[in-house]
């Protein structure tokens, strides 16, 4: 499987990014839920800092994913026509936007509470906004709502892929499967 995308198939890098992001978002949800259950203490600090590190990793992966998409302009070739094609493009645009906004809102939420955002204890990101308890509360809600929006759009994304596969019987789903090969 080539690294770069081709006209018919996603390359290995695009697939790796796509599926890493999927898995890490699921991991993030469970980390956040686990932290929610805990009283304020060391364990919560540990779990939340992992959530932040993974979140910043997701942000970096999303940026690379978007840059890689731009570097592979027009490949694989979009399918469909008219309104559906436009809807697919808009849906993907929204997904990319959410992949950026979700970690950024978390980052800003931490900054507003004067919580440092570090990357697995390796280095620290600068504060995105100044310390502001009121803003922290708002961003906490934003971070949560954005997650539900992301889930909703991702569900549409999955349904669209399944529709392509089972109803339209094309290769759109297969071309992003981890080991999927174009079959004709």
């Amino acid at each position, binding site marked *: 499987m080539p690294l770069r995308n081709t006209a018919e198939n996603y390359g290995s890098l695009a697939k790796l990014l796509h599926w890493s992001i999927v898995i890490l978002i699921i991991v993030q949800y469970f980390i956040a839920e686990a932290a929610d259950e805990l009283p*304020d*203490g060391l*364990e919560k*600090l540990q779990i939340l800092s992992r959530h932040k590190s993974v979140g910043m990793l997701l942000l970096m992966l999303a940026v690379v994913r978007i840059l890689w998409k731009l570097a592979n302009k027009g490949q694989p070739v979009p399918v469909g026509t008219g309104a559906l094609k436009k809807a697919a493009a808009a849906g993907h645009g929204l997904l990319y936007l959410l992949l950026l906004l979700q970690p950024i809102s978390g980052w800003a939420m931490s900054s507003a509470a*004067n919580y*440092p*955002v570090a990357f697995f204890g390796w*280095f620290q*990101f600068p504060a995105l906004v100044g310390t502001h308890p009121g803003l*922290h509360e708002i961003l906490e809600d934003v971070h949560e709502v954005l997650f539900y929006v992301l889930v909703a759009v991702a569900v549409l994304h999955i349904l669209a892929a399944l529709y392509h596969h089972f109803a339209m019987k094309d290769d759109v789903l297969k071309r992003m499967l981890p080991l999927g090969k174009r079959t004709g």
Partner: protein
Amino acid sequence: MNTSPLRLIALPLLAAAATAATAATAAPAATVWVTDAASSKLTFVATQAGGEFEGRFARFTPAIVFDPADLAHSRFNVDIATAAAETGEHDRDNILKGKDFFAVERWPQARFETRVFRVTGPASYEATGKLTLRDVTREVRLPFTFKRGADGKSAVLAGTTTVRRLDFGVGQGEWIDTQWVGNDVRIHFELNLKQAPP
């Protein structure tokens, strides 16, 4: 009984001379400074989960007597209200004020006091004093600068030192862990001083 006129005059003279001598010793005594609370600050930088954050003490009372030309009579006494520790987030503030960290209900005051100063450079000095946090008192070296304003009646006293929180028992129980909450805490202060009226 000796009641010679000479003695009657001499006694008050001696007394006056003694008073003058005391005054002469006191006269060059180090300047008393008044701290402008609104523009002065006492902050700390601590580490959690590999990242630094800054906090501050919103209330502290420095009594500063300092004169670079009279270090022998200089002294700092700083009372710090531990309950006024602020980190910008109330959950963390509560942990900090709670029994495992400052335990503000038991020990509402932290204190730094020193009378020992030495010159380390132009306008820079080092104080060796005692810092009391919770019920632990330890020697702390405090490098600082002292810069007089142009009028000579104001000055800025600023310095930074690093203490290890666990030396003072700040972080009990699970918080002894230094991987997630660093042991080193950098303390910084900047005091805007005005000369006290004589």
